[in-house]
């Protein structure tokens, strides 16, 4: 896909970057967009296209903080795509970074991880002292 995603993010939307060549997708920040369908359909389309057209591994790097309900649903959809790909023998993985001062986020990431059989790491981000 020629069109990589590079969304700058705002108060209510996460920053999103994709790198087709490297097989990487990253998302950071809060997500409570006015129209979550518009935002996440781009991401879901990108993931679907990558998994369909490439056979290389796909890595997701997340650092999401607050998610509203429709964003939670969209993330579950993305993890489902990864799970299906993994079941079909593809190499996929997720690393979810969180601020160690807010370990509630780690608990939430754990909730997402449940039912996922692909590698899914939840790591505290290193905070400058």
């Amino acid at each position: 896909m020629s069109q990589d995603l590079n969304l700058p993010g705002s108060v209510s939307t996460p920053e999103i970057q994709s790198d087709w060549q490297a097989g990487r997708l990253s998302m950071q920040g809060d997500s409570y967009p006015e129209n979550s369908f518009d935002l996440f359909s781009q991401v879901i389309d990108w993931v679907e296209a990558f998994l369909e057209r490439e056979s290389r591994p796909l890595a997701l790097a997340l650092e999401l903080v607050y998610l509203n309900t429709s964003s939670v649903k969209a993330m579950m959809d993305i993890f489902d795509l990864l799970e299906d790909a993994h079941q079909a023998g593809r190499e996929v993985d997720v690393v979810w970074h969180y601020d160690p001062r807010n370990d509630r986020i780690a608990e939430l990431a754990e909730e997402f991880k449940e039912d996922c059989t692909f590698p899914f790491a939840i790591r505290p981000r290193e905070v400058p002292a």
Partner: protein
Amino acid sequence: MSTRDRALLDEVETLLAMEAHRDHPLHSALSRLYHRHLEQRDRLERLVNIADGFQQSAQQDLHQTRHQLDRQLRRQRKLSRIADRYQDLLHERNQALEDASSRDPLTGLANRRRINRQLKRTIAESERRGRPFSLAMVDIDHFKRINDRYGHAAGDRALIVLAQALESALRVDDFCGRWGGEEFLVVLPNTDLVQAESMVTRLCDRLRDLDLGLAPDGPRVTASGFITEHRPREDYRDTIRRADRALLSAKRDGRDRLYQAE
């Protein structure tokens, strides 16, 4: 087909095949009946097979639908659970912000914002019950000297000690906050001026005895207070202004004292 049916059919077939029976008057009719029966039997078997096939595919569909439904339910539950937890998180964040925006960051006492809010409630309550309430402004005398001599960090620590002492000396319904630099506002619900006077005198005594941890045998502070009773239908801001103005003029007359409104 049962064994008895099978045996009967075999018997008929054998009888029909025998040369001796060929000219029997029933031979032709029985032979046709026999073949008709075989045809009907085949049709019945085909029919049963088709019906079974339909049933099996319906069952597979049902199974698949149930599986999908289970999956959707699980997903829905997971979604609700996660969304609820995010909502809790947001709620906690709001509470923390609300708390932070209504507290003085140094002493942890209520700031002006919170004092004003609390005062409005106290007034409403006092008017509803027809009970008096009093206000006291407590000001630490010559606090600037502490800052000048021991530095601002030590001054800050002293303010924390003073604030804690003030807060712990109050009754359950009383309320205090940091009004300004070294000025504390104390709200005494259900308290008239006479009761307030003895309360605040005790408070100032307590502050005077306090070790501020500035140096061994370090300085003690004195406090000046001004107390006033809220006048019926008076705006709480005016009550505070009276207390504040009187405190200023009282300080000019000398410190370490308690003053009352006329």
